[in-house]
């Protein structure tokens, strides 16, 4: 369900020529309340949000891979992916890395504060199409956030999916997000492999790029699908490597990030060649992307 | 909507531009096609010349320092305090103890009045602006 703040729309509004159905104002955010704040690390925080109106809460639904446009006072809006799975009730989670003015303001939020949201927007991961396959997740840094939504969705529908493997790479141990989830997933039978580019004394795990973890994984072209998310350059190398490993292009999925203003395919900011990421993405199969060098 | 031809407020090229006004609010800028300098063209600053006019930071009332802090005042108060203070300095230290800084952002008429104010009212040639900047 797309949030329709129709209660704000002036009554009696008709479209041109009087023929358009009355529709809501797509630019109008709806207030959502911060219920929980989880510090993932110095720069990354997860917010669990819910709507004030219980009816909206009940009806609101989204799919893994979609995003919300989030408003903060005096800061405008930014797109942020869901990091929780749909269908669990009790709101939704957004995970944010402090990068600009808006995300910095979000890091000052406390439980009980409200933010504005509109959405959900974008094309999600094709969860039905993925059913029956084994899944390889490859994430870099905060790129794990949208994949977390998928992994938990799969665990909620465990019998629909085969083996699940997660390869997770971060720059340093301090950059790791969702440490608790990694443990939880391991206990639930997800094979989790982590690596960091630069280790410190606290780190006893692997050191190296996430692409190197791919050596430890056996994937079978027919029955495996891979979902990749992280910095553009990492996506490029991981997808190239997976192609070499024999996975066909339409078995590889990624989700992309762009500067975005409207979220609904009008403002034009989030273009990638002829596509608009907000509408035709953010999730793409590699078969739909010509060139991954400039992601 | 009204279109008012004026001159750009930024650099010294002197582009002619239209300010588009709706309900006493400037909602856009665009170039004049026949203006000899701008000739249908503006730089990015000219195209955005309306951008700051309605900013919330605009000063909308006179301010006077009281107990160390600037506080709102009436025009009458602000002008009288200033006139008295300038007169006092002229009286106590002579006209050359007062300086006037005119502005490359003000009109010719305003600059003319400012230098006249310095020379005829205060009695000093201490008048300059940021020509060297």
């Amino acid at each position, binding site marked *: 369900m797309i949030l329709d*703040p129709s209660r704000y729309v002036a009554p009696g509004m008709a479209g*041109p020529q009087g023929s358009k159905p009355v529709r809501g104002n797509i630019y109008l955010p709806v207030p959502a309340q911060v219920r929980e704040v989880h510090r993932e690390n110095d720069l990354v925080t997860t917010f669990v949000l819910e709507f004030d109106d219980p009816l909206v809460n009940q009806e609101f639904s989204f799919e893994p891979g979609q995003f919300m446009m989030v408003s903060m006072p005096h800061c405008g*809006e930014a797109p942020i992916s869901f990091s929780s799975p749909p269908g669990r009730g009790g709101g939704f989670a957004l995970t944010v890395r402090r990068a600009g003015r808006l995300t910095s303001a979000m890091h000052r939020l406390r439980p009980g504060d409200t933010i504005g949201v509109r959405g959900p927007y974008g094309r999600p991961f094709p969860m039905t199409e993925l059913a029956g396959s084994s899944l390889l997740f490859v994430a870099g840094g905060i790129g794990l956030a949208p994949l977390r939504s998928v992994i938990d969705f799969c665990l909620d529908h465990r019998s629909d999916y085969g083996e699940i493997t997660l390869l997770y790479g971060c720059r340093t141990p301090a950059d790791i997000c969702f440490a608790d989830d990694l443990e939880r997933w391991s206990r639930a039978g997800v094979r989790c492999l982590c690596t960091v580019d630069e280790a410190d004394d606290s780190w006893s795990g692997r050191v190296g790029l996430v692409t190197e973890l791919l050596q430890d994984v056996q994937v079978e072209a027919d029955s495996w699908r891979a979902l990749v998310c992280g910095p553009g350059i990492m996506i490029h190398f991981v997808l190239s490597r997976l192609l070499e490993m024999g996975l066909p292009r339409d078995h590889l999925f990624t989700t992309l990030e762009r*500067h975005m203003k*409207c979220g609904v395919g009008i*403002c*034009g900011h989030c*273009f990638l060649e002829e596509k608009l990421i907000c509408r035709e993405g953010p999730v793409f199969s590699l078969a739909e992307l010509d060139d991954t060098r400039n992601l | 909507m009204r279109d008012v031809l004026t001159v750009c407020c930024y650099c010294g090229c002197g582009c002619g531009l239209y300010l588009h006004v709706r309900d006493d609010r400037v909602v856009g800028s665009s*170039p004049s096609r*026949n203006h000899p300098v701008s000739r249908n063209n503006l730089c990015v600053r000219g195209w955005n010349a309306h951008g700051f006019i309605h900013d919330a930071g605009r000063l909308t009332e006179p301010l006077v320092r009281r107990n160390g802090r600037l506080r709102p005042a009436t025009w009458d108060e602000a002008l009288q305090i200033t006139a008295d203070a300038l007169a006092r300095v002229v009286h106590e230290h002579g006209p050359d103890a007062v300086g006037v800084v005119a502005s490359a952002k003000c009109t010719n008429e305003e600059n003319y009045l400012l230098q006249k104010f310095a020379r005829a009212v205060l009695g000093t040639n201490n008048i300059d602006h940021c020509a060297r900047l």
Partner: protein
Amino acid sequence: MLENFVLEKDHLLPLLRKLGRQYRLVAPVRNRHGDTLFTEIHDLDRVEIDLEHQPQSSLKPFFFPQVEVLSMYGLDHDTSSGATWYSFYPQLPENRPTVYFGVRSCDMMAVMYTDMIFLQSSEYDVYYARHRENAIFITIGCNQPFSNCFCNATRSGPFLEHGFDIQLTDIGDRFFVETGRARGVQLRRQWAYFFRDATEDDRRAQFQAALEARGLFNRLVHVDLVTRILARQEEPEAIFAELSARCQDCGGCAYICPTCTCFTIHDQALDEDRGERLRTWDACTFSGFTRMAGGHNPVDPDRQRVRKRFLHKLLHDVEHHGRTSCMGCGRCVDMCFGGVDILRFIEMVSENETEHEETP
């Protein structure tokens, strides 16, 4: 089949006077400085309606203003819990039934394109819709194209087959009148006594004017060829780089373009707890258009600044919507500081191709 009528030139002003009483009237007006702009007319006797010069901007600002308030927002603080409540109040523009008179074919085609972007995509833009509802377009064909026009090459003029409510053609002492969409038909019927049925002579005169206009274009370019070349996926990187280096970042091409619809949304604080959410025209030639919060920019401004603009107009929109979104109005040609307008691009790409074809 379209119905055809004739309106004597002497009767135009009286007709506009009638329309002006019922609708807001917008027409190209030559102001006292000599510039011609689409202007809201309050008193027909005090303005000079100008059908000789191209209006310097299109109708875009009427439907999609350069700056528009989307909503107000406010913060309420709960002193006991310390939490803040954040709410939005929409500011929908007023809808005013308007007759747009003297609209050129290119500008009419541009309105049809922007309708598609704002109203027929998956989402529906109520702000645009509010401005756009209840608009009637009386267009005028171009017997004499302006100096930088190339609408014949983009197939958006000089005369239209459809899209207008009423289309006028200047045939000497009278206008040839075609009614198109329902509102035009209705308007013609309402003021039937201004119009007489067209004769065969009138039709021939109209046909002749349309035919002659095609031969009067200054700028001869082959837009379809360029679309085909771009579709081959051999990117003219060198041309993009050369033009990008000369681009002066003014954004003028996008601002003046009747089909450029990109915008940005930002908040303007009014005080600590209140503010306005505004949308403002934006341009894909700015570096900040694609730069992300962390500073990464997927577009290389030095070499690709103008790339999206030209590909979007000449290729991507052909793929998405079946036609170029350049309507050949030529406004950006005059406008460009660095001389890197779309005509120059089209010419460079075509020349490149010709050279290739000639070298075995």
